[in-house]
């Protein structure tokens, strides 16, 4: 089989789908649009499977150079940047997630958007997004990755602002793009530094060029690359301090939130860090910073999630928090568990978002959880799958989140760059997660129904036949939920902790994910073990202990949430009132947006105004305009010398003559 062509096809078919939908099929029937879009993802999914189980499984790296993209002479040689794709074990995982989860979400979206006009635009964007995401993941060098990196940013911009008639949506898209751009600058700088240091941006060539010696000699530069990459990651993967765009990004249609803002795009930071792991591990500073940022983000976002009332906002902050976990995992050196959590998170968070979308769809775009309740009776599939998703995310033993999260937490304590404090932050975040997810699930699906029957018009081209009765959505929407629920249950077994493996009697040195990613992470491992002696200062007992502790915390917090909210959304009010100021602060998301607005945006605007008023208008224009005007004024006065009187003219001549003679002779 021609795997190279297949690789190219995986990338190009979604692009083709986007072009077809965007240009040719603008007026095609909805079903054609949806089918084309879904197929454009599903066919690559099949190819991806073939690749995954074929050459990648066999340990090969498939690479194809589509064309020579950038080629410039540089330092006597050549800086060649081909448009090259490569799939190895890391990208293969993401490939499956993107195309697999992507197909499910396309299928779902076809139904979800059924009341919209002109969905071709939506599906064209969505296909374009998948194309970008694939080029991000498949790029053999940083520039191709960057193409995808910014491409997903643009698609996200377009999709967040899909309902552009509401300026707030468009603004949210813009905010996302700009926050991402800040991160992109980091990525750019990282590229420039690797050009400076290695003369190439190709991952494999960098890896080959990066010897321990080189790293030791250029330690500051390596650290700088690491930190710049981190800046890129904070942008794309919504970490502190650039996470602010992700909650606002929920303005987009819910399938978008599921696909882009939960399963794929936001995790590209983790992909990038894993891809560059061989370099990052050379810098202790960079790794520590990554870990700290991840841990802080996890806790910070989780606290905000505690009090939100918008179903999607809760999930958004939850996403930020979970991404924090993944970053933490990478930061402590456990890249493989970052990836594992990426995968499980893709399953359960997509599930949760789609479930939320299902609810929202059924409730005609109502998103306030205080107006829901008891929905599980009316929407059993949505409800129960949502519950599975919740259990997975809070780390209920046996479900996927439990394994991946616990591996990260364990490594946060014991990993090469780990520290108990990092574990504490992570565990705190996990505790909050349990609380707000249980709160969310309970308020939406259980207890009394608080559904109001009179709905305002939530425009967006929504047609007006009111379903007064809330009922389960059709199969196109529930099927993806069920598949994802299944995956959320089993997905975690790839990263089964050693302790459990031993207990279960699995005789493998490493769990599946570690084994699978070992070619990708080999050099990183080597460096880490060289730098920190024997890996893992942990032990089975510690692992069991930490696992037990986090399970306990999870159970306590879940129980606490249940006990609080079994009376309805007002259940938390007593605590909220007790800590009034803090509550409002958290409800306002710690007022970080306002802080940025006040500290960065507004001053920059003022600087822009000042440049315009004082720099351009007053200073430069002043000189430009007032100079000639001054000459004019002076001349008007001077021209009185030309008095019209001959005597005076002659005097001028005489004086000038005498002056000249005097000047020459004296």
């Amino acid at each position, binding site marked *: 089989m021609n795997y190279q062509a297949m690789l190219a096809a995986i990338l190009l078919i979604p692009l083709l789908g986007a072009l077809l939908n965007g240009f040719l099929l603008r007026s095609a029937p909805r079903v054609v649009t949806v089918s084309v879009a879904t197929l454009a993802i599903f066919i690559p999914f099949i190819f991806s499977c073939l690749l995954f189980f074929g050459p990648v499984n066999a340990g090969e790296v498939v690479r194809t150079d589509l064309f020579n993209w*950038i080629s*410039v002479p540089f330092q006597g040689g050549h800086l060649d940047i081909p448009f090259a794709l490569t799939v190895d074990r890391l990208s293969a995982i993401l490939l499956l997630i993107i195309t697999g989860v992507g197909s499910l979400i396309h299928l779902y979206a076809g139904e979800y958007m059924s009341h919209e006009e002109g969905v071709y635009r939506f599906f064209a964007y969505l296909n374009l997004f998948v194309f970008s995401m694939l080029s991000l993941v498949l790029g053999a060098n940083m520039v191709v990755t960057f193409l995808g990196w910014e491409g997903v940013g643009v698609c996200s911009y377009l999709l967040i602002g899909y309902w552009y008639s509401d300026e707030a949506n468009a603004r949210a898209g813009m905010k996302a793009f700009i926050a991402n751009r800040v991160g992109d600058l980091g990525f*750019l700088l990282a590229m420039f530094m690797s050009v400076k240091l290695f003369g190439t941006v190709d991952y494999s060539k960098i890896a080959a060029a990066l010897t321990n010696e080189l790293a030791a000699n250029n330690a500051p530069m390596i650290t700088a690359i690491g930190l710049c990459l981190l800046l890129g990651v904070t942008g794309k993967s919504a970490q502190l301090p650039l996470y602010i765009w992700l909650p606002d990004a929920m303005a987009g249609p819910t399938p978008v939130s599921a696909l882009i803002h939960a399963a794929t795009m936001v995790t590209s930071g983790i992909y990038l860090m894993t891809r560059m792991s061989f370099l990052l591990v050379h810098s202790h500073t960079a790794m520590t910073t990554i870990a700290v940022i991840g841990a802080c983000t996890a806790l910070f976002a989780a606290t905000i999630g505690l009090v939100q009332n918008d179903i999607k906002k809760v999930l958004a902050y939850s996403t930020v928090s979970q991404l924090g976990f993944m970053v933490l995992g990478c930061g402590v050196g456990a890249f493989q568990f970052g990836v594992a959590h990426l995968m499980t998170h893709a399953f359960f968070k997509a599930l949760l978002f789609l479930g939320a979308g299902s609810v929202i769809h059924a409730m005609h775009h109502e998103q306030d959880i205080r107006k829901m309740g008891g929905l599980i009776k009316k929407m059993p599939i949505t409800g129960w799958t949502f519950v599975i998703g919740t259990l997975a995310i809070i780390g209920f033993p046996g479900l996927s989140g439990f394994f991946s999260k616990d591996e990260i937490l364990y490594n946060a304590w014991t990993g090469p760059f780990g520290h108990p404090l990092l574990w504490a932050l992570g565990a705190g975040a996990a505790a909050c997660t349990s609380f707000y997810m249980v709160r969310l699930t309970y308020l939406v699906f259980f207890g009394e129904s608080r559904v109001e029957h009179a709905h305002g018009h939530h425009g967006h081209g929504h047609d007006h036949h009111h379903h007064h009765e809330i009922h389960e959505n059709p199969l196109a929407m529930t099927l993806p939920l069920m598949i994802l629920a299944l995956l959320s249950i089993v997905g975690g077994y790839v990263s089964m902790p050693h302790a459990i493996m031993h207990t279960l009697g699995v005789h493998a040195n490493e769990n599946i994910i570690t084994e699978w990613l070992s070619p990708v992470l080999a050099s990183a491992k080597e460096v880490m073990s060289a730098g920190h002696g024997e890996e893992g200062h942990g032990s089975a007992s510690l692992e069991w202990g930490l696992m037990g502790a986090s399970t306990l915390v999870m159970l306590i917090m879940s129980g606490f949430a249940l006990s609080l909210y079994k009376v309805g959304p007002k259940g938390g009010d007593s605590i909220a009132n007790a800590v009034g100021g803090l509550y409002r602060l958290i409800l306002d998301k710690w007022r970080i947006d306002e802080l940025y607005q006040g500290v960065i945006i507004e001053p920059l605007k003022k600087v822009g105004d000042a440049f315009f008023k004082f720099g351009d208008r007053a200073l430069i224009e002043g000189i430009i305009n007032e100079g000639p005007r001054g000459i004019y004024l002076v001349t008007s006065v001077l021209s009185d010398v030309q008095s019209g009187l001959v005597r005076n003219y002659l005097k001028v001549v005489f004086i000038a003559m005498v002056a000249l003679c005097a000047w020459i002779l004296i």
Partner: protein
Amino acid sequence: MVSMISQWILSLLIFFPLLGAVLIGLVKDNQTARHLAVAVSVLELIFSLHLVAHFNADSAAMQFAQDLAWLPRGTGIRYTVGVDGISLLLVMLTTVLCPLVFVSSYSSIESNVKSFLALFLILESAMIGALVSLDLVLFYVFWEAMLIPMYFIIGVWGGKDRIYATTKFFIYTVIGSLLMLVAFSYLYYLHYQQNGVFTTSIIELYKTAAGLPADTQLWLFTATAVAFAIKVPLFPFHTWLPDAHVQAPTPGSVILAGVLLKMGTYGLMRMSIPMFPEGAHRAAPVMLALSVIGIVYGALIAWRQTDIKKLVAYSSVSHLGFVVAGLFAFNELGYTGALYQMVNHGVSTGALFLLIGVVYERRHTREMSEYGGLAKQMPWYAFFFLVATMGSVALPGTGGFIGEWLILNGVFQTYPAMATVAGTGVILGAIYMLWLVLKVIWGPLKNEENKKLLDCSPREAFVLATLSIFVFLTGFLSAPLLAHTEPTMKRLQESVVNKAAYKTELVIHGRSQEPLKVMMDH
């Protein structure tokens, strides 16, 4: 036959539009004149394809050269033209943009149509002339000749404050170019002092100029660089640009942004840097600092504009700052990026000005607040607007990305801190462009007048679609395009790094000749 054509092709490209201008003078009817102008410029484009087809991409020499006697022999001022990797792309940019501008002028120019078309053809002629001249005086003549048509285009067909704007444009440019003239004149005599022969051949003067003492080089560099910096325009010489852009009619803005501004950077690349490498080295920190300031300064001001055209004009200040920065990075990445960015800026900003023209013709206002929600009423327009915006913010996949990436990369290799500051321009660029899109394209369609707007006519759509295709083509086909420039860039780098003379030669239909020998033969 081919060699015959190759020998005369540049002269044909220079003078054919002039002939067109004369023909337009003979035509009675406005509509016929418009068709004629389009035909002339399309033919010009077809002629220019000969350059692409027969350009030897492995050579840094001046190809398709022609070297004829012009002024008295003793003065050494000759009619010498030729293209190398630097000018080829820009000539192509010119010949591609001009037909599009003529097509767009069908609706944007209503009065004095024939004069407009004739002036525009003269302008095209002068632009191509300036790009292919290899003689300082010839270059200067074309350089100034560009000024006069543009002066009238802004002054006659412009907006309310057109007289102020056009006068400012004219005087700014002339002040700069006079300084350049003195520098050229001095160089001319220095060459004579050293070699006993007068010449204004750029190729010969490269050799002389590079051997001058550092101080002399610095002075000469400064004099020429100021002239070019005004044209670019580099901060702080930029204030003519917003006025000129805002007042110019749409075709004028397009060609101003698309080609005329590039003349400044082209001049830096062709004259200032290779002629005075030592001077350029000394001045590089200042030039870089100015361009980086310009990037941030222009971007911040652009963000705060309410007039769409002014916003785009200030964005040009910012973008051209990138180009200049790339030139003074002194490595091939920077030069290549700068050259490429000139082309890309021409395409994407040209498209933006055309887009502004489309709504301006319908609504006669350029205030952002008058618009909003156009995506609903004008979906194709919104699409083109987005494409141009993406080109302008240098999204990967558009040519702008490759240009900016190479530039920033090049600058980073030599001045990492400068590159980092310049990099913020990428963020700010996204801010102001998306702000523009937000205010014009997205949001609710509130204004009653906008509810009646028609989407792009087929003619407008054709022009915009062509440019949109170019936005992406340049984004992916950069390697074959840049292959043409590679030998030239290498030579440039050799000359700058070694502070040695820039070496090149004329290739006259196939054989290469030392210009001096050619001079003796005649």
